[in-house]
């Protein structure tokens, strides 16, 4: 552990203010991303994963605000109003490519604009580079496609164009927020292959946000499981899938159809994901947890190391000082 990680999120707190309450959408989230690796952030809707993604880019807008913690990029805290200094170093790809592209400009125009802002390229140099980028993301006949409008491209091609736009600023970190959710499975496979290729070629770090455990399994090295604004488990991907430590991770994996024999009842999680309106004073999963015991309602669990592994889980079952009561 010599140098700082590429990105280090520490105790991030994002609060949304509504008329009646304060919603702690992201409540003390911490994780690291090293250069060139892919880290997953997996959770259900309302878990705070997209808000975390937007925070990293400085895209949280009123009524939301970052109210605590640090987002350190190469050791420098972005929340100290340093986003502009790293504007081109971090790029984001959203779920729906048609929302990320402006329908009245050609694909080429939009990439060239990014090139002008971030690289100072203009005119034919910009066009040539835009064509190269489209070729890099696997768009055939790029010389022709660069003059086309977004509606002339299929969904998969649009997402490739969005990725090309993101690459135009030559980022070190690509934040992908559900990049394949709007796409068909065969096109999803193409985009995941593309991200893997780009990572190899450009030594790009990727934060991949998704609800799909299959995508996590295929594309990530390490993964953070997020529930109601808190990271509940951090683990190397294969270890999480083989032996989830937190009861929520286990329940989430269990409810995927592919893991239960066809025709049998799927294991379910009763109840709904809570909306965190107070800072955590207990385990937020406890009301739905099959393993909960009295302590769970009294203590907000801290992350503890899981013995003999490279993992941590925020669960009292794994806390040696309280664990006796519950079984592992």
């Amino acid at each position, binding site marked *: 552990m010599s140098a700082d990680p590429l990105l280090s999120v520490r105790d991030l707190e994002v609060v949304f203010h509504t008329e009646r309450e304060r919603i702690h959408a992201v409540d003390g989230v911490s994780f690291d991303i090293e250069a060139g690796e892919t880290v997953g952030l997996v959770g259900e809707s309302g878990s705070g994963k997209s808000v975390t993604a937007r925070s990293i880019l400085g895209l949280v807008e009123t009524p939301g605000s970052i109210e605590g913690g640090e987002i350190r990029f190469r050791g420098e805290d972005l929340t100290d109003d340093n986003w502009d200094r790293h504007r081109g170093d971090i790029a984001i790809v959203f779920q729906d490519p048609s929302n990320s592209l402006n329908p009245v400009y050609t694909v080429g125009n939009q990439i060239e604009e990014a090139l002008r802002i971030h690289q100072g390229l203009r005119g034919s140099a910009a066009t040539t580079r835009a064509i190269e980028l489209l070729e890099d993301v696997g768009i055939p006949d790029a010389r022709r496609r660069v003059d086309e409008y977004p509606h002339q491209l299929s969904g998969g091609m649009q997402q490739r164009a969005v990725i090309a736009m993101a690459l135009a600023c030559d980022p070190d970190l690509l934040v992908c927020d559900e990049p394949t959710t709007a796409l*068909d499975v065969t*096109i999803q496979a193409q985009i995941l292959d593309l991200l893997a290729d780009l990572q190899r070629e450009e030594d790009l770090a990727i934060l991949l946000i998704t*609800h799909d*455990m299959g995508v996590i399994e295929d*594309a990530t090295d390490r993964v953070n499981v997020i529930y109601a604004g808190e990271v509940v488990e951090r683990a190397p991907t294969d270890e999480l899938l083989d032996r989830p430590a937190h009861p929520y991770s286990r329940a989430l994996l269990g*409810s995927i159809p592919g893991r239960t024999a*066809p025709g049998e009842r799927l294991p*379910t999680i009763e109840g709904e994901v809570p909306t965190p309106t107070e800072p955590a004073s207990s385990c937020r999963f406890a009301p739905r947890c099959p393993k909960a015991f009295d302590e769970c309602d009294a203590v907000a669990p801290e992350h503890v190391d899981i013995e003999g592994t490279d993992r941590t889980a925020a669960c009292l079952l794994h806390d040696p000082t309280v664990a006796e009561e519950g079984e592992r």
Partner: protein
Amino acid sequence: MTGGDTLVSVRNLKTYYDDGGIVDRDPPVRAVDGVSFDIDAGETLGLVGESGSGKTTLGRTILGLETATEGRVEAEGRDVTELSGEERRAWQRRVGMVFQDPEESLNDRMTVGEIVQEPLTAHDWPTLRVAVEGGDADLGGDLVARADPDAETVDLAVTVRGSEADVTVRDALPLSTDDVSVSVADDGPTPTVTVTVTKSRGAIQRDRAFELLDRVGLSEKHFYRYPHQFSGGQRQRVGIARALALEPDFVVLDEPVSALDVSVQARIINLLSDLQDELGLTYLFIAHDLSVVRHIADRVAVMYLGNVVELGPTESVYTDPAHPYTVSLLSAIPGSASPWEGGRVTLRGTPPSPRDPPTGCPFATRCPAKIRPEEWDLPERTWRALDELRVVFRTRARTEASAGETIKRLVGLDVAGRELDETVEDLLADHDLPAAARETVDEAVAMARGGADARAAEHLREQFGSACDRDHPDPIAQGEGWTSECLRHDGDHEGVAETITAREDDR
């Protein structure tokens, strides 16, 4: 659950969408392009395929929500695409549909109770079907009609004993025997049985709505709330309750869990299974999530570009897929849920336009196991480059030319120019093409340069194409109740899986 009895028979069904303009140059969209299969009573038939493959249109056409262009949908010996008037309404009472997005498919200005009750009101439900036993009798009374002599369900069974009569009420109805009284008047050649229902139609409908909410895991208190007060999973429960209101025996579920989180999805899938068991429902389950379909479906139909390319028992199709498209789909499932043991077969490009489907096999343009013509002996990567080139020409032929290009074309100028040469160069530079093949490519490029992109694509197809580009494959049996439409199944060619594995290695 019964098995084997056919509930719905689909035969050579086609649904085309025409833009309908008077000077319309576009050919129609062939959303469903000649499909045939049976749906058995009590089963779940899964329907998978990419977006735009025609799954939803097929489901809607079977229910009569879209007009079939050609072909038949038979139920009880009648073609339901031809029904009108009362017969059509009777068919609509027997079927239900659950939509993907519970947010958009529920009217936000209506309470959940009104939403669930709406089909009941629209169909003036109930009209109680009465069977009279114990001799001929005329029937009188509101809310009642004589039951069909061979109907399976009878709402009220009346037994006449002289001037007295007993009545029993079907259990599933929100009606007790106290709500019904029967009198017999011996006033003519045959006695008249008059049935009086003391509960109003509105009250029966409301109780039915309560019952439906209860059945899908909601409760009476939800009746008065609005959809926006509900979570996604609850809204989908409302959608299911509504679909079941008229006691259908066949339900089309169009991506019912796609918009839901996995933990909520699991609960809705379990609910659908329970309802099927309790009510003996038959499902057509449309989904793009292959793991969900594997879990819930007895049989699965795989759709591509308006065609059902493979259909068979779910486990057989998932463990030993016959059609190259099925192989590609299964191999694309991310993570360990993929049953395909080989490497991921990444399909190139996107499906062709359903306005202009390929003439031979619909999957020929992207097929990882396409039959290659014997005249040429080229490595797989070169074939793929040539395929790609043809796709480039076809794509160019489809996009509208700019005004400048059109003028240049009219005066016979080189419109594609350097840009086209570079694209061809990029695709073929590091391939060792035989002289004759190179000549064919040059001829095609010359055509494209003059603006004849479609002819250039056609030229490549003629020279480098095979049976796959000419002949539409017929369904070939792969096992009991299992068919696949691929020319490789004719016995003269290497198998699909072997070919794909060999080619992926050679790529």
